[in-house]
């Protein structure tokens, strides 16, 4: 079995997001970038499946600017066998990403495609579902447990009401939740080894997909600032304020 894992380069989750002064977007220059956190879970799961002898190859793919190569390289350092980078410029909407991934899937013919359930930059939560629609494959979103059984997958999904289990045929798309596993750190020897693993580079234009944006971003603003609060001197004052001033208890 072959697993394709899609990874996205995003602003690191520990960075304070700053909106550009001209409201055209958020500041990304000289900001620490990392792999989208649930994409780390997706890579980890694919590598674990391979280590268990149930997969033969793990291919990491990223779509983004030249520097997204670092994100692919990190996936290689934790166990992916080879990488693909589809180079794009500017904003690529999830619909376009899924169309590009569809082309990669047609070329690579994986049995499974894994990715994070959502990217922490645009918070869209769309790409996996869109890709499975385009391929007419089963989808298992928000996966917190994956079991491979007789060529099928039993997936436990995190839903608002609790947990749901579905069984899907292969080939399929799985989007991963943070609860799926504990992503490993890359060891230094593995980081060195990853430098020798191949990364194929393609241009989005080579894939014959129209990726021009359909959504115009008019402006990006700071969230409304909270009014400065007060410090209370005792628990009794706090409870009195919550009861009589804020009226929330």
């Amino acid at each position, binding site marked *: 079995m072959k697993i394709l894992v899609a990874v996205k380069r995003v602003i690191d989750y520990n960075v304070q*997001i700053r909106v550009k002064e001209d409201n055209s977007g958020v500041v990304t220059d000289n900001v620490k970038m990392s792999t989208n956190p649930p994409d780390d879970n997706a890579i980890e799961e694919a590598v674990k499946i391979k280590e268990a002898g149930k997969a033969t190859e793990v291919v990491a793919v990223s779509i983004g600017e030249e520097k997204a190569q670092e994100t692919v390289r990190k996936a290689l350092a934790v166990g992916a066998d080879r990488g693909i980078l589809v180079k794009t410029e500017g904003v690529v909407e999830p619909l376009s990403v899924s169309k590009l991934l569809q082309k990669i899937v047609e070329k690579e013919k994986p049995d499974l495609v894994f990715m994070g359930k959502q990217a922490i930059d645009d918070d*869209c*939560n769309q790409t996996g*579902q869109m890709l499975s629609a385009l391929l007419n494959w089963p989808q298992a979103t928000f996966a917190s447990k994956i079991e491979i059984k007789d060529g099928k997958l039993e997936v436990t999904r995190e839903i608002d009401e609790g947990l749901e289990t579905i*069984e899907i045929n292969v080939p399929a798309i799985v989007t991963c939740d943070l609860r799926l596993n504990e992503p490993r750190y890359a060891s230094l020897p593995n980081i060195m080894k990853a430098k020798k693993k191949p990364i194929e580079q393609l241009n989005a234009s080579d894939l014959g997909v129209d990726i021009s944006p*359909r959504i115009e971003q008019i402006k990006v603003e700071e969230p409304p600032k909270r009014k400065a609060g007060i410090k209370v001197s005792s628990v009794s004052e706090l*409870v009195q304020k919550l009861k009589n001033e804020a009226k*929330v208890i």
Partner: protein
Amino acid sequence: MSVLLIAEHNNKELRPFTLNAATAASQIDNDVHAVIIGHKCEEAAKALSKLEFVKKVIQVEAAYYENFVAENFAPVIVKLASNYSHIISSANTFGKNLMPRIAAALDTSQISDITKVIAPDTFLRPIYAGNAFATVKSKDTKKCVTIRPTSFDPCESSGGSAQIEKVEASEEFSKTKFVKREEVKSDRPELGTARVVVSGGRGMQSGDNFKLITSLADKLNAAIGASRAAVDAGYISNDHQVGQTGKVVVPDLYIAVGISGAIQHLAGMKESKVIVAINKDGEAPIFSVADYGLEADLFEAVPQFLEELNKLNTIQK
């Protein structure tokens, strides 16, 4: 053209966020039609027909619609879509799972999790877990939009008298099978929708000490949250995590106990109506977003908090 609302239900009753989504739909266009797909969902369809704003109900029934599998639902909506300018659902796990499958089939770039309708083609939505808000305008002729339920008031559940039209089912998608659903049966409210949330951080020092949080939450009928630091330290399971990589919560009252207020945590709770912070470090960033800050040792303050609450005649539920 009209707006098509996708109802969320359990085959017997509507799920509450359908009412919030109906309000959002009505802000886009007056002519709101609602589709309900399910199995033996007569009662829920009737409830839907009575909603304020809903002018027409489309009911689609088949045994394989019983468990809301997106691969079965999407073709039904795609077939109906030609009559509508917008397709709307909640941005909860139901809508998040389903809508992109519809949007891709319609070749439409979906707009997720809107918090405001500015114009029928222009919406406000949070990005970076609410650390920024984007105003976006869709250039697609057909728009697929999911709405953040807590940003829209629920509509009235009575007053409407929509006709219910039955439409034939689409073919079954046989490659996905529902196995089971384990709903969390807890007397405690769900973290995502609770009126009050009490959260603990690294300052709790151990999983055992989290019982202080539990007692406070019991008293206030609150959900229990935690910072990533507390989850990483193994004090509590990660389904309690509030923050950019956990759940985003918007309760009326959020009580942060022993939480310093890392950026990633603030992103998940700073839209709460009233925020209380209890921390012994007066310089902790959590105080910058707190309406009421108490600089104190939590191991003294929380038991006192419980005592003070016991003195009150009534506590809101």
